[in-house]
């Protein structure tokens, strides 16, 4: 029986990590944790996030505050539990003092909760875009230099109502918090402008067959607002095309992201002309954006244009590096100086100036876009308009915004 104990210890020793590995971190390197979805259905998105983060690291010459950056990867499968587990490993075992991530909405809320128990570690968001990560019950050491799902929709509702002339719009969206947030952002403006949303279809995530949902959409709407991501978006779009759907579409941010636009199949006919909004636009002519795209394309297996996951991880990793530069890479004070520097940080990204509000959530430009066919036949998001410096309350007074309540299936509503 002793063998069991010995084999147990041997296993522990074989991995060489029984002793705290903090000692391994030398003085001239700084460890940054990179938490993204490297397994499960969101693997593609997580890998693109990593590309974005690596662009920022390479741009800084691989150093921050005079120290060599050592990236330690943590992998989740997009479930909040796995995100917390990966974050714990990065913080408690690998000893990172700065962590960039996670990728998806509920992961963000879970990691924020974990952040509260580790006050001397600095957490910087990846692309997680749930409102409540920073808006309700925020953590002092959780920073988000990217914007949330409702912010991403800034300008779209007004544009759809005024410029496109859509008065009645049906909503099809996945049944969880990120689409709730996006629908909230869209409807907040659209309903205010006088639009009506007579029907909302919340579809369980991972549903493949949308044809019945499509058939049940009311006939008398001017357009359909679609907030689906990845495989769900591709399925919906191709089945909408198959069913001969005629109403134009309005897209959520990840519905017309590069991950969907590059998918093989028959989605392009229904996609062209779809207005959307988000933190990036593929045809942005700003030199800073073009430089970013060039740097991004040097990464292995890159998409034709960076997805918003690459963009989000880039911006947040860049913020981490800038913050570390200001404190000369010194986090020996439990990161207090770093966090003070980050709070005041304001910098120019490929998509305009970014600064933080008092909840440490980004105030940044949002891009109103429309899907067009690019010169070599690939689909792109053409820049229509820049909505400058959108804050988390979408320009509404904070108390009033809070009174609108937390996002849910039924909030907001304007049938």
């Amino acid at each position: 029986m002793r063998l069991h104990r010995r084999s147990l210890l041997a296993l522990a020793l074989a991995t060489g990590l029984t002793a705290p590995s903090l000692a391994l971190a030398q003085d001239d390197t700084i460890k940054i944790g990179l938490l993204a979805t490297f397994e499960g259905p969101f693997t593609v998105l997580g890998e693109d996030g990593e590309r974005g983060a690596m662009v920022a690291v390479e741009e800084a010459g691989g150093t921050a505050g005079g120290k060599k950056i050592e990236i330690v990867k943590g992998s989740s499968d997009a479930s909040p539990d796995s995100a917390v587990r990966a974050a714990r490993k990065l913080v408690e075992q690998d000893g990172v003092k700065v962590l960039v991530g996670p990728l998806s909405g509920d992961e963000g809320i879970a990691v924020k909760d974990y952040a509260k128990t580790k006050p001397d570690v600095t957490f910087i968001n990846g692309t997680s875009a749930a409102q409540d990560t920073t808006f309700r019950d925020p953590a002092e050491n959780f920073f988000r230099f990217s914007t949330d799902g409702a912010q991403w929709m800034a300008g779209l509702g007004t544009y759809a109502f005024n410029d496109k002339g859509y008065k009645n719009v049906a909503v099809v969206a996945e049944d969880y918090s990120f689409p709730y947030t996006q629908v909230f952002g869209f409807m907040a403006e659209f309903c205010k402008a006088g639009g009506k949303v007579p029907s909302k279809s919340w579809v369980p995530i991972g549903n493949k067959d949308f044809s019945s949902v499509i058939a049940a959409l009311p006939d008398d709407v001017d357009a359909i607002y679609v907030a689906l991501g990845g495989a769900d978006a591709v399925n919906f779009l191709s089945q909408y095309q198959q069913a001969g759907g005629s109403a134009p579409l309005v897209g959520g941010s990840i519905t017309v992201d590069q991950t969907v636009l590059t998918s093989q199949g028959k989605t392009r006919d229904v996609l062209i002309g779809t207005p959307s909004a988000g933190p990036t636009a593929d045809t942005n002519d700003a030199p800073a954006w073009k430089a970013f795209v060039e740097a991004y394309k040097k990464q292995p297996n890159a998409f034709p244009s960076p997805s918003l996951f690459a963009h989000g991880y880039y911006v947040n990793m860049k913020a981490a590096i800038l913050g570390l530069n200001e404190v000369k890479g010194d986090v020996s004070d439990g990161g207090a100086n770093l966090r003070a520097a980050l709070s005041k940080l304001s910098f120019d990204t490929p998509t305009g100036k970014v600064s933080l509000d008092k909840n440490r959530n980004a105030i940044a430009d949002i891009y109103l876009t429309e899907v067009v066919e690019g010169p070599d036949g690939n689909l792109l998001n053409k820049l229509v308009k820049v909505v400058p410096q959108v804050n988390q309350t979408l320009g509404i007074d904070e108390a009033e915004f809070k009174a609108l309540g937390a996002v849910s299936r039924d909030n907001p509503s304007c049938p």
Partner: protein
Amino acid sequence: MSLVATTPATERPAFLGKIGAGHILLAAALIFYPAVANDFFLTQIGGYSLIFGMIGLSLMVLAGYGGMVSLAQITVAGIAGYAVAIFGLNNSGVHGFGWPWWIVAPFAMLLAAIVSALIGWVAVRTEGIYTIMITLAIATAAFYFAQQNYTIFNGFPGFNGLRAPEFWGVNWRDPVPFYYLCLGCAALAYAAVLYCSRSTFGLTLQAIRDNPRRMRAIGYHVTAHKVFAWFLSGLIAGLAGVLLIWFNGRVSPGTINVAAAINVLVIAVIGGLKHPIGPFLGAVVVVLMQTFAIDIVGAERFNTLIGLVFLMIVFVSPDGILGLWERLKPHLAQDSLRPGP
């Protein structure tokens, strides 16, 4: 094998003397483990392994003694976890009745055991191999229901901000207390299972596993015995579920998804289903692999690695690591070897 040494006196000293050496050594190793391990190894490896070992143990009770392989053990643990979130305190703003932990924890265990008995009652109505399919389907249904239902389970995000209790001046989520808490619970469960397996009920259950028809003919109520085994296994899974939720600080449908359900089976099979120590061994191996795969083979191919290990175990040694051991040391085997289901 160790753990019995921490609660032995209440049972049979003779039994302790018979196979005690290994138990005592392992117990000592486990008790003094905090002296050599850092916090991460205490909770993320030690505590987590003990918790998943217990869930594996609840499967071992059913599979090893009852011949019923269940994939719904994580669901049962999850029920207890959700009960802790709903009746205890959470910060998701849904439910959170704030009952004290010493009511919530036993209540959650009892609820889990009742649900387990219900699952068992459905599953034992059919013949052997059906059980694995039905429990897989039930586990998936529970996952979907938890994900879609906001009034009870708070849907996709689940519950956040669940705190382990603080009493006797100790915060039980601190690394060392939490490790000992898990160790104590695991030892209790382990000892209980060992005791039960030698009790009249345990022997009857094993006889039913080997020949249900004969047992029925003799006059035993076969279904009742099996359902009671599900109830007992539910108590263990429920206890593990409560610990798991204190450990994670949160519970969501992701806690009880299909991957998690299969994970429990992998743990139990890799460790071995013939003896209650098996699942704990399996848990240590799997948790170590899970945690450090990203540093060794990269997270991307982790599942291939664990799948291959699993396949190898099933092919080479049907009784898991434990079986390998017993093959090496046949003279020690008599004590725990039993004919397979």
